[in-house]
């Protein structure tokens, strides 16, 4: 019992354009913020999992962060599983390290200057990517690969541009309540449909908002957590499946096995899908939200547009989605802020965006071009 792990602190920097600050400084601020939130100090940290900036290749980033903060973890590593699954994997490893008795306080963080720190000539992520069988044909960056799979999904399940628009509109509505969101100006369907085509079938307003910023979570052993000020949150279940790295290796939407992932994570928590009070869904593009909501079974395949237009994504529904505005409208910090928001909701500290009585949260999403997918279920301890 005493070796169980609890999430005890969250940190989130302001999101925006910070060309005069580094990824190290941004992550440092988020980590210190999370430690302060937890009632802990840097000297308490004995475990550290981080991910270096995608916008600028980095090595030994865990060491860099440990040095910068003056901490001396017995366990530190960079974890780059991909997208939301990077933070999911950090949290799982933090829980295991605490349960094993290796660590008492573990920090997990990600953040970067995605908006202002990108190397010249870099693709969606880093310039070190060389995709031998795709790049020569112009299958580059992130938008075109996502657009390719969007076309496949629309063809198979009948998803319409208006359905993608409904996702973007709901995310914008939630962002308008979030003081730390990049894009708060209300959006309607005309604005969505009128936004310029980037890579058909994806428009500008299908794409997430690239931003500078960072987020962090702190976990502590349950006996320590009991002495700390915040309501304790537990990682109650997780499931991950990997399939591919390159979009050309995409095995088909059924092969992602999202429904099985969701069921597995929920079963570990002793819950079913209808128990989920709030869902934080990786939304690098609107199609991401569609694939996860339909794949996990929140609505039928091809039914997300109707689901969204009925208000099922919005605050006030049974299970609001991306109450912080998501990557689409709050800003893309690799999915770490999905976990921060889940904790905030479960603590009852989400202010204007609070889901009444939220006890069970699901964070679901992926990395690459749907190449690794994961589901985390979190609950009040």
């Amino acid at each position, binding site marked *: 019992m005493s070796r169980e792990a609890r999430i005890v602190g969250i940190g989130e920097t302001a999101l925006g354009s910070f060309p005069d600050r580094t990824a190290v400084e941004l992550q440092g601020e988020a980590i210190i913020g999370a430690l302060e939130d937890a009632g802990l100090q840097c000297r308490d940290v004995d475990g550290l999992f981080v991910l270096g900036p995608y916008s600028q290749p980095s090595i030994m980033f865990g060491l860099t962060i440990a040095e910068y903060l003056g901490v001396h973890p017995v366990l530190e590593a960079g974890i780059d599983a991909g997208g939301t699954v990077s933070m999911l994997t950090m949290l799982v490893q933090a829980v295991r390290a605490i349960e094993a008795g290796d660590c008492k306080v573990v920090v997990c963080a990600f953040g970067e200057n995605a908006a202002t720190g*990108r190397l010249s*000539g*870099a*693709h969606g992520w880093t*310039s070190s990517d*060389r995709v*031998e*069988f*795709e790049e*020569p*044909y*112009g*299958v*580059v*960056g992130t*938008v*075109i690969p996502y*657009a*390719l*799979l*969007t*076309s*496949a999904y*629309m*063809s198979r399940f009948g998803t319409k541009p208006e359905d993608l628009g409904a996702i973007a509109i709901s995310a914008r509505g939630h962002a308008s309540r979030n003081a730390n969101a990049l894009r708060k100006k209300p959006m309607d369907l005309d604005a969505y449909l009128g936004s*310029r*085509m*980037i*890579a*058909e*079938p*994806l428009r500008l307003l299908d794409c997430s908002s690239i931003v500078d910023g960072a987020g962090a979570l702190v976990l502590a052993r349950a006996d320590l957590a009991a002495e700390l000020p915040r309501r304790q949150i537990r990682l109650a279940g997780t499931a991950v499946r990997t399939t591919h790295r*390159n*979009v*050309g*290796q*995409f095995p088909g939407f059924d092969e992602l096995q999202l429904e099985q992932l969701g069921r597995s994570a929920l079963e570990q928590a002793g819950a079913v899908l209808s128990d989920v009070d709030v869902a934080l869904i990786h939304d690098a593009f609107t199609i991401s939200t569609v694939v996860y909501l339909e794949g996990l079974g929140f609505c039928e395949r091809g039914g997300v547009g109707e689901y969204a237009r009925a208000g099922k994504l919005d605050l006030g529904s049974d299970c609001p989605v991306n109450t912080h505005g998501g990557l689409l409208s709050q800003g893309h910090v690799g999915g770490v802020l999905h976990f921060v928001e889940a904790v905030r909701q479960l603590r009852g500290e989400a202010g204007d965006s609070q889901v009444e009585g939220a006890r069970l949260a699901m964070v679901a999403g992926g990395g690459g071009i749907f190449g690794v997918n994961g589901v985390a279920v979190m609950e009040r301890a």
Partner: protein
Amino acid sequence: MTTRQDDHADRGPVASLASSAATQPHWDGLARGELLIPRCESCGEFFFYPREVCPSCAGRDISFRQAAGTGTVVAASTARVALNAWPAEDVPYTAVLVRLEEGVIIPGRLAQVAEGPIVGAPVEVSFAANAESELPRWKLT
């Protein structure tokens, strides 16, 4: 083998796209106007992209076979703006994933800019006269 850079200098731009000896036959084939895809001699499966080991059975006896050159579009996207690192001089262009008759999926580009959705459309590969310096395109049939 000698250094790849030297080989590339002799082989022209298409052949120089190979990152390793294991992928070189595919690019050499394209440079000659032939679509060669790898096949595992142990389990008989075609696969793509070329690699030293078969992704189905981990077999290492890999041969290259000439594909029929026909297939079906399984995904398509037309680039409308030139974002960072996109080939600006080519925009607009239509990127595709094509499922070959042999069953494997291969990334490529359409010969024309697609007008509307083309997922499910049959296509055939088309080589330029100067295949050693120009990549093949897929034509709607």
